[in-house]
Structure formats: structure tokens, C-alpha cells
């Protein structure tokens, strides 16, 4: 199912944060939205999840405007993992993943065979089946994030939105979670759109990179083609080298040292 954003403009109070943004995300691909803090990338994701009302433009899912669907119908097609999701006190992983089935349930359809299969597959796909009866708040950050992804997987939607899914994780867990996100796109032919901070991670795990600054899209395309030193400078205002990783050829960003703030050189140089 294709996610289409057309001419989207949005504001926080008087401050304009999105200006006529267009975006197309296709099934089976991971689209990464990158950009400096406050560039509007999270707002874009929130508009697509109907958490923020845009001033102009529209978001369509498989051809229909998301505003014209009921919340439940939309939740059967589009799942969202917020940046810092909160869970009820003392909930277990099993309880969390079971709630992922909510949009498919009703008063007399409380736990169908389909719910049962989807939840089991989600637990296994996220590699958290052995944690099912553990309390979520007693797990490590990486385990917890995989459990949240299991909940999203249980929701079994063709479109998945993720807001900084790796921001609080160490390197090992980042790789684990990003690989899982790749598998969701490839294995389920899902349309995955995520906001990420780490440019190198975005370059390695996303099929498409959308770079934003000041509420506008600066670049949109295959990471290797889009990601240049020039773009990094326009996004973050720093000089950086874009290298090719020896292992897989993915782009790696290496910021250049600014002589003015280079601490090692001031230590080594004797005072004039």
C-alpha cells in the first residue's frame, strides 16, 4: 500500500514547521527521513499518523485520504511507533503484543484465530518469544524496543511509521532493531517510513533517504546518490567527508574536525 504525502504544510501555533512537503513511500521499501532537530521530520510523521492536523495538503493511503477513514479502519492499515512510547504499569510482553491486535477486534471478536496467529508470528519475528511473560519495564532498552516492534508487527499493517526507533539504543541494539525493520519491509512487503538521526544508519538500512531542513525537502532519493558532503553541510552546517564503507559500500559520514574547537591540537601545542 502506497503512502502519498502531497503539498503538506503544518504549523505549531504561529510557527510554520512544514512547507509544501511531498513524499511517496512504496511497499517493500524503507524510507528514512533525516534532518537537523526542528526540521519538521517528526511533524511530517505525525501528520501521516493523524496525530497532527496539517494546514494544507493531504496524506493518502492506497489512494484514499487518511482523514476520510475511521480511526479503527486507519489503524488496520497504518501502525505507528512513537518516539517514547509509554506502557501501562507492570504490563508483560504478551499483554503488549496482544494489544497490537486491537484495531482488528470488536465486542464479539475479542481474540480470533487470526489474532492468535498474528501475535505469535510477531513475537517470533521480533525474537522476543522467550520474553513473552516477562514484564516490559524490567527488560533492557534493546529488548524493550524489539517488544514494541513486535506489537507493531502484530498489528499487521501494510504501512509502518517509526519515530526515531533507535535513538536510545547502543550500537549493538541499533543494528539489531534496524535489521528487524528491514525484515519487516522485505518479508512483509510493508511500506516503512522512519525518522532517524544517525545518517550512516539511515544510509545503510534505508532504500530511500529524504533529507529535510526548515520544513522543506532538500533531497530525496537512493542514499548513495543523495548523501554528499554538500548535503551534510546544508543540513547541519558542518564539513564532512562521505566515505564508502569497506564492508558493504554503504555511505559513512565522517565530520571533519573544526580547527577552532580541536581539543587535541591545543593540548599538544605549546602556548605561544
Amino acid at each position, binding site marked *: 500500500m502506497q503512502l502519498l504525502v502531497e503539498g503538506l504544510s503544518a504549523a505549531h501555533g504561529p510557527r510554520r514547521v512544514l512547507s509544501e512537503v511531498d513524499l511517496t513511500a512504496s511497499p517493500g521499501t524503507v524510507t528514512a527521513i533525516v534532518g537537523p532537530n526542528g526540521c519538521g521530520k517528526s511533524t511530517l510523521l505525525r501528520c501521516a499518523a493523524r496525530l497532527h492536523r496539517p494546514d494544507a495538503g493531504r496524506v493518502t493511503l492506497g489512494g484514499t485520504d487518511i482523514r476520510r477513514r475511521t480511526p479503527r479502519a486507519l489503524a488496520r492499515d497504518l501502525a505507528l511507533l512513537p518516539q517514547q512510547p509509554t506502557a*501501562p504499569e507492570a504490563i508483560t510482553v504478551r499483554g503488549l503484543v496482544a494489544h497490537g491486535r486491537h484495531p482488528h477486534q470488536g465486542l464479539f471478536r475479542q481474540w480470533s484465530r487470526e489474532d492468535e496467529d498474528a501475535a505469535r508470528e510477531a513475537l517470533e519475528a521480533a525474537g522476543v518469544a522467550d520474553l513473552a511473560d516477562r514484564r516490559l519495564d524490567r527488560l533492557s532498552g534493546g529488548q524493550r524496543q524489539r517488544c514494541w516492534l513486535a506489537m507493531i508487527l502484530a498489528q499487521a499493517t501494510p504501512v509502518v511509521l517509526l519515530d526515531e526507533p533507535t535513538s536510545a539504543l547502543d550500537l549493538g541494539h541499533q543494528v539489531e532493531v534496524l535489521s528487524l525493520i528491514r525484515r519487516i519491509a522485505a518479508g512483509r512487503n510493508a511500506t516503512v517510513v522512519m525518522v532517524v538521526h544517525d545518517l550512516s544508519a539511515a544510509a545503510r538500512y534505508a532504500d530511500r533517504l529524504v533529507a529535510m531542513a526548515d520544513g522543506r525537502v532538500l533531497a530525496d532519493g537512493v542514499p548513495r546518490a543523495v548523501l554528499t558532503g554538500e548535503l551534510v553541510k546544508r543540513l547541519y552546517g558542518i564539513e564532512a567527508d562521505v566515505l564508502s564503507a569497506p564492508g558493504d559500500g554503504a555511505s559513512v559520514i565522517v565530520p571533519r574536525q573544526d580547527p577552532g574547537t580541536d581539543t587535541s591540537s591545543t593540548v599538544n601545542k605549546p602556548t605561544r
Partner: protein
Amino acid sequence: MRPPDALVLRAGRLSLALPKRGTLVAIGIAVLLAAAIVASVAVGNGRTVGWRAVEALFGGENPFARRTVHTYRLPRALAGAVAGAALGLAGCLTQTLARNRLATPDLAGVNDGATVGVLVTVLGSTTATIGAWWAGPLGAIAAAALVVLIAGGMGPTGYRVLVVGLALSVTIDAVTELVLARQPIDVARGVWGWTIGSLNARGYDVAVPVGLGLAVLVPLALLASRRLNVLRYGDETATGLGVHPGRWRLYALTIAVLLAGLAVGVGGPIAFTAMAAPVLAARLAGNIRVPVLASALTGALLVVCADTLGRAFGPVEVPVGVLAGLLGGPFLLWVLLSGKD
């Protein structure tokens, strides 16, 4: 995979996931509540106490004992149960909405609004010594509307509503005191007991209409319970799961305000029940689901027990609100100081 603590029943395309522990706990509390009502009937002044009262309750021959039990004691116990159930469920809803165990209708100014409403009906009448129950929900709705208006909407966590409610409830409380202070002492004393929560002279005239209100509102709350479970995840995740947070928060808050108003209409602003009942119910029934039914039953049990205790010692009865406060203070400390289990 099965959801936690669920008995899954399926027939064709229909499926139910019934809470195992929650159902057992609800049945257990209901049995205790029945026992507490019988005990409540057996306690009081005069000679119709203990076994003699229990006998009269279940069809004994003594006409005087029968009259005492069926005209005064049982209606009063049932009125207490109804008020307690309403408070317990109202507290469960507000605590779930605010995601805070201290968030009760009392804090949002709802109880005080209801109190003023009922008080007006007492003082406006020349004969009545106890207020009209229906003024409770009206006062509660007025107070809630005022709070939401001043707070400028519901807000994402209800925090603002609570702060405004707190300020407003102090103000309304002062108005109550002011109105009472200007009354002749005998009138003031008669009404005073009720303004701190009392079931004195309450009977079927209030228990029946308020019980009917519960018969509508409890199923409405139960219908929303699956969505309440999801609302506990916060607005963003709830939206992602297809639950419109604003819509369902308003739905649940409206039910909570009506319940709290009805409860005040019966027994005045009985303290702590709305806070304690849902916490106790969650300890017993577990945290997997919002304990909608268990909170109502626990609230009923608490109020019936407190009222019985208030009549058990000496000829002068202690208003249920005072006892609830005496028991509730230490409970509040326990909730605040005990870590998350």
C-alpha cells in the same frame, strides 16, 4: 499466542477473551459485599442487633425487627453499596484517564460541585433535611464543565484539568462552608453530617434511582473497557491502535462525572473511596486490564464496611465520610510510599 490471563472462547466467527483472575476476584468481592451487607444490617442501636436482625432479614417473624431491618437498615446498606460502587468506578475511570493513581473526581472539583448542588436543594426547601439525589449529578456536571472551561480543554494527560479542579474545589468548598456558616445552628448541624459524607436516614428513595443510574452507567463503562486498556498507552500509541483519545476520554469522563454526582447525591462526598477502591481492585485483579467491575464492587464493599463500623461503637454514629477519611489517610500514605510492585 494467547493474551495474558484470558479464557478464550470461540464459536464460529465469534470469540471472547474473558479475564480469569479478574472474574474470580469480582465474584470474590461480590460475596464479601453480600456478607458485609448482612453484617451491616446486624449492627445498630436498640434490640434488633446480631442474629435477631439477620433472622428478620431472611424472613423472621418478629414484626418490629422486620420493620427495623427492612425499612431502615437494609435500604441504608444498599444505598451505601450503590454510592460506593459509583465512587469506585468513577475513581477507576479518572485514574485511568489521567494515568495517575491520585486522580479522583474529588480532586477535579466534581464532588464539591455535587455537594453544593445538593446543599442548595436542602436550604432552598423549608422541610427537607436531606438533599435531593438528582442535584448531585447536576452539580457535578456544572463543576466539571467549569473546570474544563477554565483549563481550556481536556489536555493530553488531564494534568491541567486536575490542577484547575484542585483550585476550584477549594473555592467551592469555601462556598459550602460559607453557606453553612450563615444557617441557624440546628439546620447547619443537620446538613453538616451530610457535607462530610453520611448515609444517615438514606434509603430506597435514593438507592433505587441511583441504582438504576448505575445499571445504565456500569455497562456503558464496561463497553469502553477495551478502549480504556489501550488509552493507558498514551495518546500517540492509542491513536496508532485506532482509539481516538479525545473522543473516548470525553466518554469516560462524562460517565465518571455522572457516577460521582450520583454518589454524592446519596451519601455526600465520602472521602477516599474513589481513590482507594481502584487501587485495591488493581492489586487484587492484576494490572492487565482496567479493573472496571472490580473497582465498583470494591467501592461498594468499602463504603458498606465504613458505615457499619461507624454505627458499631456507641449510640452516636460516626459519619461514613469521617471513617473513610480515618482509614483513607494511612492508605494514601501506603500508596504514595510503597514502590511499584
